[in-house]
């Protein structure tokens, strides 16, 4: 990787020696396995579906944007008070002669986990997938619901 114009060594000023060694350092950094990781891994190119979390008196409601998926390809699970939404989006378009000329959509696996702030009744969790939005309703356990205690003032 060399982005600066080549200069003949005899024309380079002595003070540039440090700068060019810094440049070599940077080049090495970008050629290191770390750079390879950021380029190839899902860290920068992956799909993180946007989600909202609401809370009302009875429930936690999680809404996730998963456009263009099949219901069967979405997995919702609850483990230790954490809700996991995962799945895989597959490309529907399979034209042998098609040439993709704009590709902004992400295909592949994704996973998002939300730690819920209070215990929920795992057996009463409901999920609905409509218009590309997944809505998960998680009823709170009786103990987690806010209670109003009337205190009589004498």
């Amino acid at each position: 990787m060399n982005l600066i114009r080549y200069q003949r060594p005899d024309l380079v000023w002595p003070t540039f020696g440090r700068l060019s060694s810094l440049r070599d350092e940077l080049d090495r950094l970008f050629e290191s396995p770390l750079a390879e990781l950021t380029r190839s891994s899902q860290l920068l190119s992956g799909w993180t579906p946007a989600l909202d979390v609401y809370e009302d008196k009875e429930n936690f409601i999680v809404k996730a944007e998963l456009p263009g998926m099949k219901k069967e390809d979405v997995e919702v699970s609850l483990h230790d008070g954490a809700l996991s939404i995962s799945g895989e989006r597959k490309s529907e378009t399979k034209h042998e002669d098609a040439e993709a000329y704009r590709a902004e959509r992400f295909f592949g696996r994704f996973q998002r986990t939300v730690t819920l702030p209070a215990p929920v009744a795992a057996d009463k969790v409901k999920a609905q997938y409509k218009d590309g939005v997944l809505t998960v309703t998680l009823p709170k356990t009786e103990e987690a619901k806010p209670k109003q205690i009337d205190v009589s003032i004498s």
Partner: protein
Amino acid sequence: MKQTLEKDTPKNAERTPATEFVKPEVNIYETKDGYLLEAEMPGVDKDGLEITLEGNELTITGRRPDESVDGELLFRERSRVNFQRTFELDPAIDTARINAKINQGLLTLTLPKSEQVKPRRIAVSE
């Protein structure tokens, strides 16, 4: 051919303030019969979708219904803004035969090329 179905020109960017719309993410494929455009509009159904053709500019607009929940918002990443994006069409597209469908927030537009511009093999006579 490549440049003719390009995305938003600066002119269109000025026309729609950034605060009003977000651009849906799209995939565009070209086949020998035409183009296929997929746009992600989560939350938008058939009634919230509007597709307009003005000259050779195709605009897709997706309005999200108000799906606010009566409760406290703990965490928010989703945008409430409607979707809009404009595309300049390849003149080879037969605009009368453009087809649109929306399924699970994914808009699929089929833009066929008119018959006379499809590649065709010409037989060489002896």
